């Protein structure tokens, strides 16, 4: 109460103070410097952990950086564009494996993001209205997201075991769907194993974001639609889904980048070397760098990957922001 009165009384005085110019200097300097001061910790950290390493990574990609030079990487000889040439020489083993891994990653990412989005959106829309048990179900659905990656994925590793896993037990012993016990963590099946785990772990994030987005749709829209005689399904198609447009743009981009760059899931699922069918690019680069000890080529691959991601994101943002502007203009 007294606070408001002081504010009302003091407001005019401060304004005239600012109008006069006798002692503006100290305050002014602080004002201009303040935002930078507030940003300083974040800036310093970004510099130390992201920007400087990135520059080092780019420099490394132009060097012949094998295990002989890793202790003193500055002395490694320059190799010009050799690492890049090697990465994109698709006729040679290194380039061919990289290209294969790239296509696997793209296919995997599109499928995983699509499924995560679909399941998350459906669940959020089905749970928009209250019904008995909704709160409990919502909490349950967030469990895969909350579980630490290594604990959750290691459980899937157990389930996918050849001899003592649940998946083969159900598919082979109980339902007799397969002629013999399949291998899930090696060979072609590994792609589906990875996809299953990735969707299981990833869809709750879509669910969370869409749920948040749904709360921003004004109730009047639904009331108006109900007055016009629109049924439940029509309301979902005409109001809910279109209103989620801007939310979806952000959601899909974030899901895409996270899935594309995911290292933790394949690493815990398969270990240091993933099977060919599920050889995601980040594990592939890890293997190229830390297992075959060619850090220069690994760095060149990372830089190429970064350029690709920047290009995709740039195009995506340009297209979606144009869409947003167009819908605003309507």
């Amino acid at each position, binding site marked *: 109460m007294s606070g408001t009165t*002081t*504010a009302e009384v003091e*407001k005019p005085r401060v304004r005239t103070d600012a109008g006069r110019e006798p002692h503006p200097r100290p305050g002014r300097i602080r004002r*201009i410097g*303040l*935002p930078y001061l*507030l*940003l300083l910790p*974040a800036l310093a*950290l*970004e510099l130390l*952990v*992201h920007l*400087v*390493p*990135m520059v*080092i990574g780019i420099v*490394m990609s132009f060097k012949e950086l094998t295990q002989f030079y890793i202790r003193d990487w500055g002395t490694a000889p320059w190799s010009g564009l050799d690492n890049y040439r090697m990465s994109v020489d698709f006729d040679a083993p290194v380039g061919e494996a990289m290209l294969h891994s790239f296509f696997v990653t793209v296919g995997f990412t599109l499928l995983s993001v699509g499924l995560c989005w679909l399941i998350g959106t*459906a669940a959020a829309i*089905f749970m928009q209205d209250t019904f008995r048990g909704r709160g409990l*179900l919502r*909490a*349950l*659905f*967030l469990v895969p*997201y*909350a*579980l*630490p*990656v290594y*604990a*959750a994925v*290691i*459980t899937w590793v*157990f*389930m996918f075991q050849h*001899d003592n*896993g*649940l998946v*083969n*037990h159900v598919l082979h012993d109980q339902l007799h769907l397969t002629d013999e016990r399949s291998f899930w963590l090696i060979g072609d099946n590994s792609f589906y194993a990875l996809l299953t785990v990735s969707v*299981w772990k990833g869809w709750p994030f879509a669910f*969370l*974001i869409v749920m*948040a987005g749904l*709360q921003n749709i004004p109730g009047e829209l639904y009331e108006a639609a109900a007055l016009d005689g629109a*049924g*439940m399904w029509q309301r979902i198609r005409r109001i809910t889904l279109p209103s989620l447009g801007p939310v979806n743009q952000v959601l899909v981009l974030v899901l895409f*980048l996270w899935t594309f*760059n995911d*290292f*933790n899931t394949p*690493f815990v699922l398969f270990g240091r070397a993933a099977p060919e069918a599920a050889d995601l690019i*980040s594990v592939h*680069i*890890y293997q190229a760098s830390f297992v075959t000890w060619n850090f220069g080529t*690994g760095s060149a691959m990372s*830089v190429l990957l*970064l350029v690709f*991601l920047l290009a995709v994101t740039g195009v995506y943002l340009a297209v979606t922001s144009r869409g947003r502007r167009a819908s605003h203009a309507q």
Partner: protein
Amino acid sequence: MSPPSSFLWSRRIFLTLLTGFVLLPVYVMVSSSLKPLADVTGEFRWLPSGLTVRPYIDIWSTVPLARYFVNSLIVAGAATVCSVVIAVFSAYAVSRYEFRGKRVFTVTVLSTQMFPGILFLLPLFLLYVNIGNATGIALFGSRGGLILTYLTFSLPFSIWMLIGYFDSVPRDLDEAALVDGCGPLGALLRIVVPAAVPGIVAVAVYAFMTAWGEVLFASVMTNDTTRTLAVGLQGYSTLNDVYWNQIMAASLVVSVPVVAGFLLLQRYLVAGLTAGAVK
């Protein structure tokens, strides 16, 4: 205005299937953690042949789980606190002030979010080793290095979300506080932060989970004494035996604190996302 039965049936079927999919690994984790070793090395059994809490006792001696646990707590806790404090300051600057380089800052910070972690791994490893050699500050292999790394992982998302959240706090409020004689920090701490508590809690939950679950950097940048749970759990597989019941028990033990915390705070997370990220 009750929904048509086609909607109700679709909902029932969809939600039932989804619940099964979500809970299956949770069931496997819980039930296997209570099985004797013979049950998890032989053919899979839905029900244990005999319930035992032995795995829960053995996990602490098979690997130094308690030490990994403490390491993870220190690393994730410190990363969370630092990340939240730094994000609050940055987001306040971006939300309330006009300054040169503002756009460059937000775009740079946000774009680091999209870079693959593998890109930073080796350079950061070399950088930490070099800093250590030059200054004697042990970053590589220490908890400090891991804290530093992790807190930047959650920083972009935290700043982004808090900017949105602070924008939704009316400017008049903190301007009035400034007029009342609060400094900018007073206005931030007394007006903006209290009004943005759901957003801040959401960001803290996110930061903690990111640090608690990270595997890549933990596996390269830790040594025997600083190892976190992410790497430590691999210790249950020996050349001859895989103690699946112990792995499941340990997984459950390390998951319970985060999952419980997350579920308790999930309301804040949804509210925080609504106001911050999804505008």
